[in-house]
């Protein structure tokens, strides 16, 4: 193989047809708000733990929608409820976080 000093990057393409969404559907049954999130990031912006730990509810939900695991990030959550107060869709984010921990643990 010839070295050009640069090479192909790993593809980030996702085949949503191959994503196992059974657990996400279960999550939506426990907390229907999971299905109406618009990914605005208000929850992450207002999260007091996010600044210190890198935790982001938006990132976690996006990863779960794509069939990836990210539940461990939520271990830093203090259930303070600030995200519930700022959510423009009125999602019960506390229940969302607890439901994620229940299903994905």
């Amino acid at each position: 193989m010839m070295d050009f000093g640069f090479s192909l990057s790993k593809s980030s393409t996702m085949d949503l047809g191959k994503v196992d969404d059974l657990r996400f559907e279960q999550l939506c049954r426990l907390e229907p708000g999971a299905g109406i999130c618009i990914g605005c990031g208000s929850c992450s912006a207002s999260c007091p733990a996010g600044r210190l730990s890198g935790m982001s509810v938006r990132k976690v939900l996006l990863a779960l929608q794509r069939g990836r695991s990210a539940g461990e990030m939520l271990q830093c959550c203090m259930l303070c409820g600030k995200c519930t107060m700022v959510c423009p869709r009125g999602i019960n984010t506390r229940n969302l976080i607890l439901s994620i921990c229940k299903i994905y643990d």
Partner: protein
Amino acid sequence: MIYEGKQRIWSEYQKDIPDDNWYYVRSCIRQNFFPASERMFTEITRNVLGKDIYETPHHTTCGGIAYHCDTIPQETVMTIVARQFALMTEAGYENYCPSCITSFGNYAEILETWREFPELEARIREDLWKACRREFNKPKYLAHSSDLIYHWRNEIAARAKHKLVNAVTGEPLKIVEHIGCHYAKMFPSKGVGGAEYPYVLAGMVESWGGQVIDYPERRHCCGYGFRQYHVKANRGYSLSNTHKKFESMEPYHPDAIITNCPGCPYFLDRWQYVIAEQTGRTYGGNGFGIPVLTYEELAGLVLGYDPWDLGLQLHQVAVEPLLDKMGVEYDPAAKYLGLNREDIMRPELPTSIKCF
């Protein structure tokens, strides 16, 4: 859908292209990458179609490369462009035709900016006067040179010596058309077919007998992206974009790719070599790559010009498989004979992709 309604909607995606009297400006890089393309444009339009195409040696860069690399401010680019318009005005033309897609996007962006902010246009007029004592009229029509070939595609088809048809099987050749991003993604109303249904190259392929391939990554960038290539640390990103396109089009077995941008044919052509050397993967049949041609080169082949006069020997990917399919006659021994049949020397051949 009702036919008349469909026609009405489609008419909104068209643009006015005057039939004659164009002021033509060349690209900075195309003459190095594919040196015969612009020469062939003037040859076809002037000598075959009998059109008035004017160009001047006083033309300079439009500043588009530097602008898109974030190295000069837009006001500087505007003053450069104002000078180009002054040259057009002095020559007595009002239809402006750039050969480069980035120039086309640059001109479209500047004309739109001046329309929105007339005070900025007034300032640029003043700057131009202070810099070189020139004045200008804005072009009445702006069209990319591929728009003109599209406009005259049926006249070219009427004079065709070869069609985009497999000479053995009689089947239409499968062609991938790749539009430069700066053609219609920035200002959709400025391109034929807009950003959603760009028809400028597809129209040529269909008129000349070929079949356009629709594949998932058809509208994906070629990967050039200026800073993605110019900064070596980002070059893998450029390569990966091109790789993504080839992986997407390969299952449809394209016979050739036609492009209308300076960067796209270069990267789609050269990166095939790099991908082959790095991964061993080739996308044409029998270890060859997929030939990548500019629309002028393809028009030249259709009109029966000698492939070596079209500069096809300067492509990285061998074009011979396409020439054989089209039934174009060529002399393999003359491939590396230049002007006056002087030997221009043979390149070192790659190890992983077949070339002649």
